[in-house]
């Protein structure tokens, strides 16, 4: 029954051309799985109660008075009063019992959610209007690194993220892995992710945060432990110095134009911290916090006119000649 209902939800998604990578029904995390089975239990129990009320309404409609001039004297005395009181009283007791059972189920499910809150976070997630800064912690400064809008996590190992904001309130939400948790300025929150199977899961800001709240998504890549280690090692490294001439020219343009004022590319003089760290931007799947899949075309379009793709974004348009634009794009896309 539960499985069938789950299929129904997924089918509804599939019908609308769904990739199903941002769905609470398509759970791939421990927390999301617990919540989903609680959701189905609630849906079934409450659905049956709703159905019972509808049957009562249907009986009323069947028994309606059909006389042509049907408004007539009303009844004031009700000899069946006592029996009806008993029926209503027992229904009320049944409601109270149902409510108590559902509350208990909910409490049991919420235990693991609150249990790990005190644990130390391995990743800091900082919300910005309208992108996500991701800082991986390490034992030494050399093991720390910063990236944006894309997190990798190892399958089967719980990862705790600390959630911070420096501007307005955002909310971190990956439906396939866990419920949401807000990022509130001046307030420390955290969330634990435990992916049960490898995959790419999409998440999105869930608290209205202004003009581009709709374009503030991110990806969680859950992968095997060794793949995750490799990814971390690659991310820790500074950006490679480009060999090809056009890419070398792009690197030059990047540091001589305003780009470097806002963005960091480790291993180059570019050290701005206003915008996302671009050291390994070429390794990410999307540009602009989920606006477009990353490729030469979308990246060039983004650099040429960020406001055309994401109106109101904090990145100003930077005037580059066609050659400069091509060179910068080639340089950035090569930062794997």
């Amino acid at each position, binding site marked *: 029954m539960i499985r069938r209902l789950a299929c129904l939800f997924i089918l509804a998604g599939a019908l609308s051309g769904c990739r199903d990578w941002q769905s609470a029904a398509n759970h791939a995390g421990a927390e999301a799985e617990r919540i989903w089975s609680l959701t189905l239990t609630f849906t079934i129990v409450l659905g049956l109660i709703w159905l019972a009320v*509808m049957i009562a309404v249907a009986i009323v409609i069947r028994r309606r008075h059909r006389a042509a001039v049907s*408004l007539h004297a009303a009844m004031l005395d009700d000899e069946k009063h006592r029996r009806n009181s008993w029926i209503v009283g027992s229904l009320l007791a049944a409601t109270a019992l149902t409510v108590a059972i559902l509350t208990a189920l909910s409490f049991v499910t919420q235990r693991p959610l609150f249990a790990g809150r005190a644990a130390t976070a391995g990743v800091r997630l900082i919300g910005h209007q309208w992108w996500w800064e991701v800082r991986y912690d390490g034992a030494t400064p050399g093991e720390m690194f910063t990236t944006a809008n894309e997190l990798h996590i190892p399958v089967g190992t719980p990862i705790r993220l600390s959630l911070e904001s420096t501007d307005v309130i955002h909310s971190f939400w990956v439906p396939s892995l866990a419920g949401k948790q807000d990022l509130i300025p001046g*307030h420390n929150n955290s969330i634990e992710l435990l992916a049960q199977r490898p995959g790419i899961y999409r998440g999105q*800001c869930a608290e209205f*945060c202004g003009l581009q709240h709709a374009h503030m998504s991110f990806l969680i890549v859950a992968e095997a432990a060794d793949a995750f280690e490799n990814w971390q090692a690659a991310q820790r490294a500074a950006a490679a110095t480009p060999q090809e001439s056009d890419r070398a020219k792009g690197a030059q343009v990047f540091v001589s134009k305003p780009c470097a004022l806002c963005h960091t590319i480790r291993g180059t003089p570019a050290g701005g911290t206003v915008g996302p760290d671009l050291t390994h931007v070429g390794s990410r799947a999307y540009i602009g916090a989920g606006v477009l899949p990353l490729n030469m075309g979308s990246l060039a379009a983004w650099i040429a006119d960020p406001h055309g793709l994401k109106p109101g974004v904090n990145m100003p348009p930077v005037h580059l000649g066609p050659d400069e634009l091509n060179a910068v794009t080639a340089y950035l896309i090569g930062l794997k």
Partner: protein
Amino acid sequence: MPRAAATPRRANQRDTGLEDAELRERLAYTWGRRPGLIGWLTTVDHKEIGRRYLVTAFVMLALGGLLAAIIRLQLARPEQHVVGPDLYNQIFTTHGANMMFLFAVPVMQAFSMYLVPLMVGTRNIAFGKVGAYSYWMYLAGGVFLWVSFILDIGPDVGWFAYVPLSGPQYGIGKRADVWAQMITFTEVSSMAVAVETIVTVFKHRAPGMTLTDIPLFVWAMLVTAFMIIFAMPAVMVASTSLILDRLIGTHFFNPSEGGSAILFQHLFWFFGHPEVYIIFIPGTGMVSAIIETFSRRPVFGHVAVIISLVATGMLAFGLWVHHMFATGLPELGASFFTIMSMLIAIPSGLQIFCWLTTLLTGTPVIRTPLLFVFGFFFIFVLGGMTGVMVASIPIDLQVHDTYFVVAHFHYVLIGGAVFPLLGATYYWFPKITGRMMSERLGVWNFWLAFIGFNVAFFPMHILGILGMPRRVYTYQTDVGWDGLNLLSSAGAFILVASFALFFFNMLRSARVGPLAGPNPWDAGTLEWLAASPPPPHNFDHIPFVTHATPLWAERDSLPIVSGISVNTREILITTLADAQPEMREASPDSSIWPLIAAIATTIAFIASIFSPWAAVWGSALIGVTLVGWFWPKSMKEDEE
């Protein structure tokens, strides 16, 4: 009604020993308004003000619905450009703020203003001048919001206006101030009506109407009035502190200066959750009234329903944190609010069981108002069920701020308040206009609304599960929300058609509908004793009440009270519990001061979003108008 040709006036003429026709004419003269525009501006008659409230609220409904239609156009397909993000944010904020503050609460208070004095058997609402003032304030607040919206300074921070987004740093321009000050306008007006309702119900009831004899609709409005008085100050503190933060740099909500962003949420939802019940409880009162009349028997468990209304009103103040489960509260605190949220299902369930028992043991006659009540059962009960789901912390953490919640609260508010409201409009329209609404169009209206609503909003539950967050101006095609959004938009336009039909039916029936007579539904409560539409004085004789449905209990002749003045505005004050007559008291005469005071208040409110000094000179200005308002007048008796 214009004052008729002068009849010779004698001191303290009482209603004993007058012919019916002469009594009616004299009372109408005493309670009627002055002729012409001045009369229109100065009236304190609860029926005239109630009608204005109703018309204005329905205009707000139409305007807010228009914005909803634009939202559904924009979201029908992914990556659409019907409107841009800036306008979209203004649209959804104005839609929400308008529907909550300028439609839902005022329309319920409008029915209350019109019906409560009639249903408790008195001649005007208590403090009639305050009623007039509250209407002008409401009108000014509504015009203020909509003019701002048209001038592109409509609020764009959501109807909840969370800081820091609405704070001085991120909420640039005057948009957030418009939101905050619109709240002040509507709060002043709804607090005023709440006070009037409470005093009318407690002290102006017809003799003999004990507390348990009060009609359930009036009980619902009484509970609502108390909730308004306790809930609204919280949001006024929130919105006023926000204006202070923005205007003079207080740092109530600025975490870097020792303020708290979470505090705003607590203040807002301490009001915001009761607000839902402030809208829904009047809906239950309407449902009780309609079920009583059309199942041809008094509501089963009259006292049980009263208790559950009061219980709902109290529990409603203990649930606000379930809007904040994702903010990272400690477990014990959050769990308390889960229990409270779940508990509210019990009084709601009790009411539903009582209504169903009434229908099952009565002889139900299906007319349009009852159709809408069946729609209410279908939609509201479903919304209540999803309400139990969002009370659970784990489930809420998934569905919070998604389209699941959008679906949930539209099921609760449209199902729990708007369907009863539509039914109530069909039910009380003959009382207000004297003409029946078309039953045939009513049935069409119902089915379009019922189908349109469910097609528009049911898919949103699934969209929320599929991960679609609220308040996004667009979405991408690779997340799989296209089909359900298109379906939802299609449903929304059926819903729009149903409301167009509703308005058409009202406008047409007001002119050509069949004449209704005083009691077209053969209902049992006192408002149906008065003529349709009621004369300025409501009742020729104040009735004496012996039963909760007096018109059914005393079919042949209702006992009446006599000895009340016919040439001064005199009303009967009765005791709180048993409605024993206590004394006669003067009811206020027409006055222009409410309008002048409202204009002064409007000037002060609007100016004070630009300069803090406006609060100073604005208060003085309001003070001057209040001196005029309270200027001692010699009583008529003294003159003669």
